[in-house]
């Protein structure tokens, strides 16, 4: 039985393919289209999934969409009804696309399949948005039984939902509905601090440790009420998302007595304090919900999904508080993960298949995207007229470790691309965490991004305890841990003495594990900086061509694609296009 899951038409469209419950392939459309957060029908992602499985579209048994469009439309219409006469501009902006296309989504999806694949599906199934999130979190997790908490902006009506997963069953417990939403609350503050909604939330999270949470009480008094039962309530008069095209209102700005920060303007202490404050409030809200869920389920483990579950600070705190013994966060926790979740929900809940639990989870390290053969890589390098070396794997690893120990910055393009927003060692830029000034060099000359942004470390499993104190290791870079010696590696240590650490397990990513071992031989530390292989606002690279373009137009010293090594030193003819990165709209 083959099931194709699709998410699209809002942001981060994606496709995922299941074959008898096993995840064969999953990818986000933005990686192929090179449009960040691409929301269009995921033609290339679907094509990739089919190619990976070696099948044609007519061999797919069932197709499922990740949310219920009519319920979503009901929410939108009811919102407009509630705020009339306000909301006219927002209404006139949103309605044409809904009425012309999205409302009849079954027809729209069928026509997209017809147009792109010359195939009209007989039937398309629809999963509820939060059910898709919950299924992506629980069914892919290593747990037999677990509480499931989904937190996001909004799907149809639910913004927060609680579930109990047990074997193949996933039972809904309760939900909190729009307009009360932790995701929209955090997004509103993201906008207020001058970052883009749906992509700048992690910047706000990174900015928070620079400030003091002096506005947390004010936020709790005026904007959000945290109830003793774990629920929360938002005073919607502070928010513009009901009736406006911007999230903040004048009342919101009046409360803080400061205007919304203009993008790219100076980050003053005020906005740092605001970001620290909203992060603290979010932490409290997430912990309260988790406590309630623990009380309701008695489960030892918790699974998280939804965009808010990408907040590593709140996740790390959840581990520190020991509310649950174990925690597993879906690496594609945002809407892209909905494609996978919808397929899993259909497989287990509608088709009634029995779940076989994989003790190390079903995500295969999140390496579910496309990979490229040596021949394809070589063709690409020749196309760019680059001088390169092809080496044995061990020699490649030794040479790469040597470059890193010499403080060179290396593009690392290996195997199957990651599914989800994090680069986990397949499409990464690696750096030496011991090197002086590497943080500012990488931020400003490689990534062209804000200088305050921290870099994440990767460490081999056996060495984790030497550097980090959080009791749980995470292979998906989704937990924040305290760094034991904050002076040792300032490049990976955030201002509050924490790091968003990724643990590399030998059985999941052997090549990167071996690279870290080689680096340890040279430097004494099995730790590297791992950041996504892209520049600011660019989707993470997918194909060798994308990697080479990024390499050519930034200060990356060398790039390792499979066992091919290309260095700037060997290619003095390279001329950098200083305007290359300007094609990507700032996020």
């Amino acid at each position, binding site marked *: 039985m083959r099931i194709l899951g699709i998410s699209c038409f809002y942001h981060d469209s994606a496709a995922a393919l299941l074959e008898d419950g096993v995840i064969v392939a999953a990818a986000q459309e933005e990686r192929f289209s090179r449009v960040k957060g691409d929301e269009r029908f995921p033609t290339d992602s679907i094509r990739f999934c089919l190619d990976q499985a070696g099948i044609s579209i007519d061999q797919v048994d069932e197709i499922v969409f990740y949310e219920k469009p009519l319920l979503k439309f009901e929410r939108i219409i009811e919102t407009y009804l509630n705020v009339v006469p306000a909301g006219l501009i927002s209404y006139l902006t949103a309605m044409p696309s809904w009425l012309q296309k999205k409302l009849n989504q*079954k027809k729209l999806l069928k026509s997209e399949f017809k147009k792109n694949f010359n195939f009209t599906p007989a039937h398309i199934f629809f999963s509820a948005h939060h059910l898709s999130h919950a299924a992506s979190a629980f069914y892919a997790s290593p747990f037999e039984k677990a509480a499931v908490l989904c937190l996001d902006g909004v799907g149809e009506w639910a913004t927060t939902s609680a579930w109990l997963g047990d074997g193949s069953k996933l039972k809904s417990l309760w939900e909190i509905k729009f307009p009360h939403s932790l995701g929209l609350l955090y997004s509103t503050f993201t906008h207020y601090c001058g970052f883009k909604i749906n992509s700048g939330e992690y910047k706000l999270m990174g900015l928070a440790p620079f400030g003091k949470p002096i506005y947390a009480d004010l936020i709790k008094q005026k904007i959000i009420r945290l109830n003793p039962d774990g629920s929360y309530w938002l005073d919607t008069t502070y928010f513009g998302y009901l009736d406006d095209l911007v999230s903040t209102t004048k009342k919101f700005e009046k409360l803080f007595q400061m205007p919304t920060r203009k993008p790219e303007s100076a980050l003053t202490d005020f906005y740092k304090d605001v970001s620290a404050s909203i992060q603290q409030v979010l932490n409290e809200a997430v912990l309260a919900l988790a406590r309630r869920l623990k009380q309701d389920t008695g489960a030892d483990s918790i699974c998280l999904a939804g965009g808010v579950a990408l907040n590593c600070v709140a996740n790390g705190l959840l581990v520190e508080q020991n509310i649950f013994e174990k925690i597993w966060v879906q690496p594609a926790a945002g809407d892209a993960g909905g494609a996978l979740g919808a397929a899993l929900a259909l497989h287990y809940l509608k088709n009634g298949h029995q779940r076989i639990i994989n003790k190390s989870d079903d995500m295969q390290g999140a390496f579910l995207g496309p990979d490229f053969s040596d021949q394809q890589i070589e063709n690409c390098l020749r196309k760019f007229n680059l001088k390169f070396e092809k080496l044995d794997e061990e020699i490649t690893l030794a040479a790469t470790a040597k470059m890193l120990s010499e403080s060179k910055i290396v593009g690392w393009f290996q195997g199957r691309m990651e599914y989800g927003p994090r680069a986990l060692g397949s499409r990464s830029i690696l750096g030496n965490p011991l090197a002086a000034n590497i943080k500012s060099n990488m931020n400003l000359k490689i990534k062209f991004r804000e200088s305050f942004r921290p870099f994440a470390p990767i460490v081999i499993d056996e060495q984790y305890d030497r550097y980090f104190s959080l009791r749980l290791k995470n292979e998906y870079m989704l937990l924040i841990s305290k760094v034991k010696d904050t002076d040792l590696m300032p490049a990976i240590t955030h201002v509050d003495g924490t790091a968003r650490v990724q643990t590399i397990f030998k059985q999941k990513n052997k090549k990167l594990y071996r690279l870290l071992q080689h680096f340890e031989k040279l430097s004494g530390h099995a730790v590297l900086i791992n950041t996504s292989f892209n520049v600011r606002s660019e989707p993470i690279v997918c194909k060798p061509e994308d990697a080479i373009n990024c390499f050519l137009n930034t200060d990356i010293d060398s790039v390792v694609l499979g066992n091919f090594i290309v260095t700037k030193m060997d290619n003095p003819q390279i001329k950098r296009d200083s305007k290359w990165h300007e094609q990507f709209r700032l996020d």
Partner: protein
Amino acid sequence: MSSFVWIKNLYKHDPLPLPRNLTRACAAAISISLGIFWYYKTQNFTPLIVSASVATVTFIKPLAKIFFYVLDLVIFSVFHTMTLLTLTFVFYFLITPLRIILVVSKKSDSFYRKYDKSTIDEMTAETYDFERMF
């Protein structure tokens, strides 16, 4: 098809074999009754407003026709959808005065339910129905 022709066709087909005015009166009465019933059940003004709007539209057919005709001429070429016009008409020409009346008469200060203790709701069984788009 022009939106005017579309709405004209719609009016040609009365759902009940009754005189048109009586049909409209019945529809309006049912709509308002349902709205009042639902308001007392939920304390939410939205159904009341919707039902009142439906009732109003039912009674002012000639007015509606003129509105649609004008709107059709002016806006149809931009939005290409009669449904949009209908919703715009209902929302911003009928509901606005009703809402203002409700707010001014202090019958409503907010259209969202305000919970004293919790915002937690039970989920519905429809969550697991993969056939439906709703």
